[in-house]
């Protein structure tokens, strides 16, 4: 990154200190954010290759490029890498680390040392997860369902230990963010004036510290099952494999909101900035994030409608799950109301935000389908589910991540992302995404099961369309990569506030100085006072 800095006069966080060592030992939240940026995009690249391998294998029936055993490993690594190393740290640890302190007028996060340690936890976790490849690999899927996952495979042990350690990265980041929001806001920055991105990160952090420890103990138990055969989840030893599902989803459903709430925050920022209009329903959007975080702890059973859960529990979980639709819809309606009669600037970050509104709505509504118990019996474990959560996680989180990257890039590096490249990447990702995943809704409704290596001949056409779409997404992300490199090397110089946005980060220089502001800002107005 140093080359970007050399073109700048004055000192900023990039040239404040120099050399690789200064990056690896940095306590500056901005630099740690950049470390996450590199890490997350690296693993996104790895996870993306696995995704393309899956789609290539499914292009035709029978063996296309790999055998069934390899296929099982490939989808496991795709899922585990994307969930634990990309989407969960993606927005909070990268954009959040960089912008949370700046947006509230702080000099750093509350615990900078802990912040750096979180990054090393992620790296160490990743090393464990990747090393599992050398001892036979893991083929359980990212959900590690028992009893298959406790059949004494060293690869599974290394994988869960990796996820366990990476989990601490998430826990400690959440802890840091909560303390920072509580204690380090600039004078005048009341809780009613913090940007909606902060509200989203704050709600996410609550889930991170309350849910991730449960995942930690669950993964620890899976490791213990493999090493000591303790038998909690092993029916052969008197244990209960469904208990594992309860534990796992008690974390992993809220984890869905760890993945999507920060994206909501980014979208709020983008919609306000590019509509040039005060956001509609600030309070409603802010508190709906908290509401989603709260409800998220009581819906996990919707993953277990066909796991032998009692009917009463099924009905309760079904109703509670549908409840999540309420705060989520509140957000969507408020964003749309903000767009109404606004002076919309269709710059590339805004394209991603509008794309998000479209794709996330489909992802959310199909979630309601799946929450309907009777329908879920038919759709459970089919490609309908695969399409649904990709609409949420890719169509939602990744769209917001790229939109947020383009939006904040000028602030982070002092250079603009080329608008044409930005638009081209949007076209490929948005179009490719729909080409990939819409056919999967149809495939799922027709009964094609997920995670299978092969399928019936009548599913071949739709699978081929889906595979072509995945290549389009691949091209789209290559364009994102080119856009980033191009911007770093030759990007047009950005002013302090290229978008004319109103939140605090745009009042400091681009890139920001070491301690974010030359003088601690004094806040006298809300974050979106446009008109």
């Amino acid at each position, binding site marked *: 990154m140093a080359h970007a800095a050399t073109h700048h006069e004055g000192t900023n966080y990039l040239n404040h200190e120099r050399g690789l060592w200064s990056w690896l030992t940095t306590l500056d939240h901005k630099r740690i954010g950049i470390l996450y940026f590199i890490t997350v995009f690296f693993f996104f690249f790895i996870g993306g290759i696995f995704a393309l391998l899956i789609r290539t294998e499914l292009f035709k029936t029978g063996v296309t490029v790999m055998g069934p055993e390899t296929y099982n490993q490939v989808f496991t690594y795709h899922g585990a890498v994307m969930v634990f190393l990309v989407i969960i740290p993606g927005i909070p640890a990268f954009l959040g680390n960089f912008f949370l302190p700046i947006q509230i007028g702080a000099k750093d996060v*509350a*615990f900078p040392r*802990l912040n750096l340690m979180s990054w090393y936890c992620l790296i160490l976790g990743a090393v464990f997860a990747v090393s599992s490849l050398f001892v036979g690999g893991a083929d359980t899927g990212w959900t590690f369902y028992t009893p298959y996952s406790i059949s004494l495979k060293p690869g599974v042990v290394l994988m869960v230990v990796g996820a366990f350690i990476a989990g601490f990265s998430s826990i400690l980041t959440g802890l840091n963010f909560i303390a920072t929001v509580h204690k380090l806001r600039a004078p005048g920055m009341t809780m009613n004036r913090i940007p909606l991105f902060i509200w989203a990160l704050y709600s996410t952090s609550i889930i991170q510290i309350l849910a991730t420890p449960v995942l930690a*103990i669950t993964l*620890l138990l899976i490791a213990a099952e493999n090493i000591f055969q303790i*038998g909690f989840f092993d029916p052969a030893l008197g244990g209960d494999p469904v208990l594992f599902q309860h534990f796992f989803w008690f974390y992993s459903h809220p984890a869905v909101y760890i993945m999507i709430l920060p994206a909501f925050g980014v979208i709020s920022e983008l919609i306000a900035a590019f509509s040039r209009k005060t956001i509609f329903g600030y309070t409603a959007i802010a508190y709906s994030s908290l509401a989603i975080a709260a409800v998220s702890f009581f819906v996990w059973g919707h993953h277990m409608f066909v796991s032998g859960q009692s009917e009463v529990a099924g009905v309760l979980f079904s109703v509670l799950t549908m409840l999540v639709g309420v705060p989520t819809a509140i957000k969507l309606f408020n964003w749309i109301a903000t767009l109404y009669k606004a002076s919309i600037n269709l710059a590339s970050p805004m394209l991603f935000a509008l794309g998000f509104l479209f794709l996330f709505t489909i992802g959310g509504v199909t979630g309601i389908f799946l929450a309907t118990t009777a329908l879920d019996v038919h759709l459970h474990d089919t490609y309908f589910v695969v399409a649904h959560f990709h609409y949420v996680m890719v169509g939602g989180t990744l769209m917001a991540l790229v939109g947020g990257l383009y939006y904040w890039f000028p602030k982070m590096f002092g250079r603009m992302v080329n608008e044409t490249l930005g638009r081209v990447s949007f076209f490929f990702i948005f179009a490719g995404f729909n080409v990939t995943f819409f056919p999967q809704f149809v495939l799922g409704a027709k009964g094609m099961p997920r995670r299978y290596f092969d399928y019936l001949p009548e599913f071949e056409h739709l699978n081929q369309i889906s595979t072509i779409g995945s290549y389009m997404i691949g091209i789209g992300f290559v364009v994102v990569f080119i856009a980033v490199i191009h911007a770093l090397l030759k990007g047009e110089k950005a002013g302090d506030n290229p978008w004319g946005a109103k939140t605090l980060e745009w009042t400091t220089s681009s890139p920001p100085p070491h301690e974010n502001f030359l003088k601690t800002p004094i806040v006298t107005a809300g974050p979106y006072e446009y008109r």
Partner: protein
Amino acid sequence: MSTAKTRTHHHAHHYESATHEYDTSKQGMWLFLVTEILMFGGLFVGYAYFHHIFPEIFKIGSTFTDWRLGAANTVVLLFSSLTMALGIYYTQMNDRSKARLMLLITILCGAVFMVIKYFEYSHKIHLGLMPGSWYTADAQAVLEHAKEKFPGLTEIPSNLPLYFSFYYMMTGLHGIHVMIGMGLIFWIWLRMGRGWYGKDHYTGVEGVGLFWHLIDLIWIYLFPLLYLVT
């Protein structure tokens, strides 16, 4: 090591004052304790669930724990919480030598706890009372032993090893925390010997103290759940 020399702590650049830093650190510590409780919470939920379906294995299994040793460990840990609290108190009073003595006693209590735990473990391992499929205890001997307390018993449930899985997982995870806690207190003790901490700066001492109290608290729940099942 002289305790006469006092080092002044400068608050980090992103805080307005030492108090500001202290308040924030303390909040961070409480948040961390929340995550610890939730992590142990998973085990407690698992315990409650299996205790509900198989109450008999918990009753029979607990006859192999010695409540006197458990009670002794409870007393040891409770006492260590007192010395830990006194350690913080003397730090705040700027009496570093007394504070260090208290920290040392706390560490010793932790060591006593672990030694007692060691004897309990080795006794069980000797009898083959191991978790899950490692369980090798002689069925007849187990039945004879359990009959002392439950005379009507005719056979030992086949999933009795599950009780020992809980026993080892819960006390094992707790034991690891005790050792981490001892390490942290030792680190504080060393730093205090070099002149750190005093009436103006005792964040580290208090943070470690909170952690130690939590370890104590978790044991207070583990003791009845594993030793006093009726």
